[in-house]
């Protein structure tokens, strides 16, 4: 009996010890691909590139609408006590350097690949170098100079001297020079053909980044001066571009933008009819419609089903909401009134104008709630949903309350959302606008239209929206050319500058400018690129944010205002059934009690202490 056990045990031991090394335990890992495997297969190489594009969405984006409230465009319905602009907003250092490492690994690996022909290889290298330049640009616009690693790949093995991996920050000038030269080099490798939905880089995309980077550097050199911002520079030039560099950068920007306008395949889109509504629809299509679009140069694309986002779900008005979560963003009045009147006189052109609404004691009456807004730059209607506007074929009802006449005086009467008076007349609409603690309600009287998707079911959580997120449009090339040209000549009647800015204005449906200046350039950019993630970076390069966001509760540009529509209920009165508007301050309503505030300290993000611990060669930014 015992012997049998002993025998069985020895047999088992023998099987285990003698056979353990045979091949059947040796399998190749099925979740890791080696360099050779990856660069030996054309499909895999393409999928690596796709992965890189998927990581290029930095800064303000359509997937993160709450962050839009950092700037003077929109608010959300919750209370918020933020006081200063968050200087570290949209600074994603770790993500960027992870990506730069991976891009460099690709550049190294694809060199020796035999799976793709040389022409494809060159084009891929061009795309990857372009993406790398874009990432450096996203870093630089927020931090100033950053370490430029070039094509180096850092592989750490224990025991090696890590100080060789620690690269100091470049100067701000050197960073922009590097970005510009990389765009030019990448451009030589890239095709001039366009691609599906313009989601991939080509020659013109690289040119656009070159133009935008050069314009950013030029404006920083011109507007971040030691006189105006004495502390906003570092000794080593990591922040602060010498003023004499401005001219060269403006020339680079102008040349690049001109090339895209004159030689590129992108064209401004025009409406077929000459009505404000047609211009508005045309503008919406130029930004938001993928099919037949000739204006978008580079975007971050989405596809349904598969890769979608929830912007539409969260931002549809309550009355046409398709799923839980809606009404998230309300547009502030400051942006709405920046759109100038269509028939503005020569001196009123190129600047915003307040709405003439009278006072509560002597209000102005309107037959339709849309009257006030249809007289404005059609881009307003193309970017923003105002009271009585339509979206997806449905009228968006916005009504804060009734205006009644009591003892000869006009009095507001408001109720809960969707409430009716004794005569079954609406008091406050389901959409609002209204204050208080209610959630999913409009606050200001305006919704975002740009990037809102009218495709059926785009507002459901299940499907989501495949609306793209635009990085570059041909309109930007025009405005860069106009700005650079004016900055170079300093002439308010500069013909080139006027021509380019008026091209944009005529496609928008507003009257041409007869003179141009810094204010008008800033204004045109604000209304053209509302919600497109450019505003903060533009305010920064013009060093304008500390002037308009001064933290003073009585400064109009620092306030978050709404314009609430009221329906007149005064039977017998000639104005019965008409509309009246009343301005509301979100601070007084205790929703956003603090005004916009930015000082010199908020312009550049902080160099994180953790990064300095890892790389003691990094110098801190000003105000840190």
């Amino acid at each position, binding site marked *: 009996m015992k012997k049998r056990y002993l025998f069985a045990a020895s047999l088992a031991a023998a099987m285990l010890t003698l056979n353990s090394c045979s091949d059947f335990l040796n399998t190749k890992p099925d979740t890791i691909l080696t360099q050779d495997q990856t660069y030996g297969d054309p499909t895999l190489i393409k999928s690596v590139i796709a992965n890189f594009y998927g990581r290029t969405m930095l800064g303000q984006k359509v997937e993160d609408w709450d962050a839009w409230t950092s700037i003077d465009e929109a608010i959300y319905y919750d209370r918020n006590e933020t*006081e200063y602009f968050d200087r570290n907003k949209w600074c994603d250092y770790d993500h960027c350097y992870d990506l730069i490492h991976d891009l460099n690994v690709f550049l190294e690996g694809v060199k020796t690949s035999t799976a793709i022909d040389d022409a494809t290889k060159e084009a891929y290298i061009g795309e990857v170098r372009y993406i790398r330049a874009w990432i450096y640009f996203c870093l630089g616009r927020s931090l100033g100079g950053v370490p430029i690693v070039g094509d180096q790949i850092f592989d750490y093995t224990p025991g090696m001297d890590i100080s060789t991996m620690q690269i100091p920050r470049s100067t701000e000038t050197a960073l922009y020079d590097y970005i510009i030269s990389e765009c030019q080099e990448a451009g030589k490798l890239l095709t001039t053909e366009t691609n599906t939905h313009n989601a991939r880089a080509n020659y013109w995309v690289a040119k656009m980044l070159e133009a935008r980077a050069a314009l950013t550097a030029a404006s920083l050199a011109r507007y971040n001066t030691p006189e105006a*911002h*004495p*502390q906003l520079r570092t000794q080593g030039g990591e922040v602060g571009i010498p003023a004499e560099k401005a001219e060269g950068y403006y020339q680079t920007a102008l040349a690049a933008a001109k090339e895209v306008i004159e030689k590129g395949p992108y064209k401004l889109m025009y409406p077929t009819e000459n009505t404000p509504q047609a211009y508005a629809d045309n503008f919406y299509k130029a930004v938001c419609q993928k099919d037949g679009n000739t204006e978008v140069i580079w975007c971050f694309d989405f596809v349904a089903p598969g890769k979608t986002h929830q912007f539409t779900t969260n931002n549809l008005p309550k009355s046409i909401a398709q799923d839980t979560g809606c009404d998230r963003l309300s547009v502030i009045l400051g942006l709405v009134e920046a759109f100038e009147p269509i028939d503005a006189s020569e001196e009123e052109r190129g600047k915003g104008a307040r709405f003439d609404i009278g006072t509560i004691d002597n209000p102005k009456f309107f037959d339709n709630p849309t009257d006030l807004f249809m007289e404005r730059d059609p881009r307003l209607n193309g970017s923003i949903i105002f009271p009585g506007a339509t979206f997806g074929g449905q009228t968006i009802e916005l009504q804060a309350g009734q205006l009644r006449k009591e003892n000869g005086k006009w009095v507001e009467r408001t109720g809960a959302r969707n409430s009716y008076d004794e005569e079954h007349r609406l008091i406050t609409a389901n959409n609002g606008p209204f204050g208080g603690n209610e959630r999913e309600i409009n606050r200001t009287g305006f919704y975002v239209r740009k990037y809102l998707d009218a495709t059926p079911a785009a507002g459901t959580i299940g499907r989501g929206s495949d609306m793209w997120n635009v990085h570059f449009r041909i309109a930007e090339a025009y405005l860069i050319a106009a700005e650079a040209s004016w900055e170079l000549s300093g002439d308010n009647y500069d013909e080139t500058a006027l021509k380019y800015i008026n091209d944009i204005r005529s496609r928008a449906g507003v009257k041409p400018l007869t003179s141009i200046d810094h204010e008008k350039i800033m204004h045109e950019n604000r209304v053209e690129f509302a919600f497109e993630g450019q505003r903060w970076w533009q305010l920064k390069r013009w060093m304008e944010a500390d002037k308009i966001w*001064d*933290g*003073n*509760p*009585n*400064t109009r540009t620092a306030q978050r205002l709404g314009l609430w529509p009221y329906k007149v209920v005064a039977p017998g009165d000639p104005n019965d059934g008409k509309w009246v508007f009343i301005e509301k301050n979100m601070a007084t309503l205790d929703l956003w009690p*603090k005004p916009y*505030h930015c*000082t*010199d*300290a908020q312009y550049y993000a902080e160099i994180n*202490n*953790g990064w*300095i*611990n890892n790389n*003691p060669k990094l110098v*801190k930014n*000003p*105000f*840190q």
Partner: protein
Amino acid sequence: MNTLFKICSVFILATLVLTSCRKDNYDEPESFIKGRVVYQGEPLQLRGNEAVRLQLYQRGYEKHDPVDVFVNQNGEFSICIFDGQYQLITKAGNGPWTSEGRDTIEINLRGTAVQDVEVVPYYLVDNAQITRNGNQINASFDVNKIAGTGIDRVMLLLGTTQFLSDGEHNVDRYDETENMADYAGGGKTYTFATRDYTDHQMFQTALNRGTLFGRIALWPSGSDQAIYSPVIRLD
């Protein structure tokens, strides 16, 4: 066997329960660094609320992150921390003073250390007067230029608590920005326009409640903070 097992278990359990925490736990710090941010020995009037901070470093560790030391609105700070050798420094660009003479202060902490931090402010708000006459507020102060080069704005702040700053002012904040160049050189008395609060709801509430405070602030050009007057009670 069973009894032995039980006794052993009790011993092991007791050892674990009674001693396990000793090793990674130590007493809370009891030492203090206290001081004030001063100019020529006088503490500065600032915005509290974590707006102005100093940085405390200790060398000899792998990481080199500073401890933030917050300065309150009367220019005082205090931090409870372990004994040791520290370095205290103002934060770059933070506070209404120049970087002139900005230097590290060595602090050897054994128990309590008192250490004032001397700075050179751009301006001082001297001899601040705020008076209430019924619903009217009058205010003036002497602009004392130390190292400033310009003034962005002057502010009159009213609130129902004594915590008053450019960000905290639940009754009113009134800014004047005109003719600032005339006062940039200092040595002049600045007088605010008389303000009438007869129709101001919050002002009336404050008066009824019996708590109204005022404070004057001056925002130097290029500074990230304003310099203040002491808080003046007005009810």
